[in-house]
């Protein structure tokens, strides 16, 4: 543990990542307390103060119906994080099971599962999510479904590759020779050794889920108004460029900061956990 902290804290980039992620998570969790206008997460209209550039107390300006952009960004973080966590909570177990089974059992199991994975992987991720999302109703639940559909194959791929190399390791042979069941070998012997790669990827992916979800919303396939969503904010604000720049620039920066933070942290984990072995 000491070593892990040492490595994390000795690299300024990791520290920045930690700070950024901490800020984002903190904002999302305590949005109710931080946001100067908590009611602006919903359908509030205030035509006495609409489309205003940054000023006090609307430090990021107001949108076209007079809502505080800063407050909405905080709530948008909340939605993004929920989406990211839910997507990963579903996609990771599916992908991991598929990857373990394909990588360890081999043969026809491997062929069928990996071809299935290939099918999902050969539709560019965004296109797949868009198709699912576009054909269903654009809601948060469907958004999660769409992003999950495109996400599990990556874990299947990752775990498959790790499993294939881990299966060559002596401890797997040892367990087999002792007579351990296949399930034991897969989940108790191999899986723990996939955990570092999975955790690293999950950290990076929390950022990328936010990114993809915002891309979907950008195309009009995301969370619906009045729920605050970073991608939709950029997309809608984009209509008013360059005059009402604050409508686009701040949500864009918000995406950048969150994803950047998760990426830095993911990199740090990769460094720490990668050198663990």
């Amino acid at each position: 543990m000491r070593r892990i902290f040492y490595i994390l804290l000795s690299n300024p980039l990791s520290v920045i990542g930690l700070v950024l992620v901490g800020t984002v998570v903190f904002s999302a969790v305590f949005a109710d307390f931080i946001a100067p206008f908590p009611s602006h997460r919903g359908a509030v209209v205030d035509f006495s103060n609409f489309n205003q550039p940054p000023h006090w107390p609307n430090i990021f300006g107001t949108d076209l119906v007079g809502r505080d952009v800063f407050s909405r960004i905080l709530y948008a973080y909340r939605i993004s994080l929920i989406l990211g966590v839910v997507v990963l909570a579903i996609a990771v177990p599916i992908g991991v099971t598929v990857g373990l089974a394909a990588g360890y059992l081999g043969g026809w199991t491997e062929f069928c599962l990996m071809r299935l994975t290939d099918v999902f992987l050969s539709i560019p991720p965004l296109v797949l999510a868009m198709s699912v999302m576009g054909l269903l109703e654009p809601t948060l639940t469907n958004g999660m479904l769409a992003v999950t559909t495109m996400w599990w194959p990556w874990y299947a791929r990752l775990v498959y590759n790790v499993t294939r190399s881990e299966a060559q390791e002596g401890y797997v042979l040892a367990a087999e020779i002792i007579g351990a069941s296949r399930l034991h070998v897969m989940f108790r012997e191999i899986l723990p050794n996939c955990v570092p790669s999975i955790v690293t990827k999950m950290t990076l992916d929390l950022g990328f889920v936010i990114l993809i979800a915002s891309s979907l919303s950008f195309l009009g396939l995301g969370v619906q108004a009045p729920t605050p969503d970073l991608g939709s904010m950029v997309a809608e604000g984009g209509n008013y460029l360059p005059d009402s720049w604050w409508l686009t620039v701040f949500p864009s920066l918000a995406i950048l900061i969150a994803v950047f933070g998760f990426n830095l942290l993911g990199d740090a984990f990769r460094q720490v956990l990668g050198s663990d072995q």
Partner: protein
Amino acid sequence: MNVLAKTAAAALLSASTLALMPTGPAFAETVLRLDEVAVGELDPAKASDYADSILMFNVYDTLVVPAQGAPGLVPHLAESWSADGNSHTFKLRKDVKFQSGNPLTAEDVVFSLDRMKALGAGLSYLFANVDRAEAADENTVTFVLKEPYAPFVASMLRLPIVDKKLVMENLGDGDGDMKDWGQAFLSANGAGSGAYKVTAHNPQQETVMAKSADYFLGVPDAAPDTVRLRYGLEPATVRTLIAQGEHDISSQWLPPEVLKALSQDGAQLLTESGTGGFYVKMNTTKAPLDDPECRLALAKAFDYSAAIKMIAVTDEISQGSPATGAIPVGMLGANPPSNELSRNLDEAKKHMDACRYNVGDQNIEISWIAEVPLEERFALLMQANFAELGIQSEIKKMPWALFAEQVSKAENTPHISQLFVNAVTGDPDTLLYGMYDSKAAGTWQSPEHLNDADVDKLLEEGRVNSDEAARSKAYHELNNRLMAIAPSIYGYDRQSVFAASNRVKVPALSDPSKAFGLDGMGFTFRLMEMQDN
């Protein structure tokens, strides 16, 4: 590796020199560039929206056109017309040739009507009443109606005449004698007699049109030589292009803030005053909106002045003016401008109390059309307004195609839909019949699914009566009835505002004495003037 680096370096190098290269026009002809959000439908029988209309009015001709700066119709392809009971006879000009060189005859008019009715798309419902058309001779054509229809002649504005010979030469695969009625051909090519002919059509990008040299009315030199109608440009793109002098006329769908910014940058604002309005439509078959009291409550709770504020572009120009009732000001049967609708929360609450539903239990779905960003703001406005009555609501964004599909069934139609509707011929019948007649329920115009005997009766009266005063009375009564049962919230009377560069002069959109009383006619390119610069 080195090869890659060199390629990249070369690419960058050329990129930097490129920025310095002049990209002026290659030849000295005038180009008009405008845009629309939707793809223009080239097939005139399928035309229905604004982009389609622009194409139709320039590539094709109609028997009559609206008078400029005044109500009524003036001859165009037809020299004169007369009515005899349910049959209308038109005398055609003899000097008109299609762009193909084929002469335009009565036979073409008959073909155009048959085709329109056979395809059953676009605005063909305007001709549902027409039993048949007959060509008495080369230049005489008679339309026979099934029943009296007062605005029939006005509906001729929506019957573009198609070059029969050319279409017959280009029939595609299909069943029956007429195969596909030339749909494949006409979706990519023009077959009209209009002042402009289609030279290229890319649904993703643009339709390019060029002056037709031997138009029967002639085309002034000042009119643009080439017109590029671009599709689907982002508002920010249009805003920048106009500011940089690379675009001429924006679509009317630019948000007011963008129009404002452009006008501050020195762009001119063009207007097309309305034959239509912004309607907030309520599904009268779904609880709680099946109770008129509840609908009235919503109508009273709607903040009309906030809506007007939202659409203001400058102090003088707005995308709309306050509504006075179901019929826009200036149209037959409309209330005077002084009768502005306004919000009254107390009355709204009274209506709410009279409503048989308990508001707390109700959740209302407010939809908005994805292609029109402004509607989202109205959705938010309504959500806030209705919340003051204690009504919960959720906002739903709907792409146009999905909306049009869902309204076909009353149970799928959202509680609240927002629509911009206009009279396609300028006559109130073409505005109101499609929206409120019980027989017309379930089209995109009628998400109210209204079924009201009084309304039906008054609509019929307005339709069959040929006497102007009697029609006016019928439409006034209809207006009152529609206010009383409130199938819709009448948001505001609509006016289209376009931002335009100063390279172009469009009298029909800037000079009220030259204005046509019909949406889209203002974009008659031959009447525009390009400035040299």
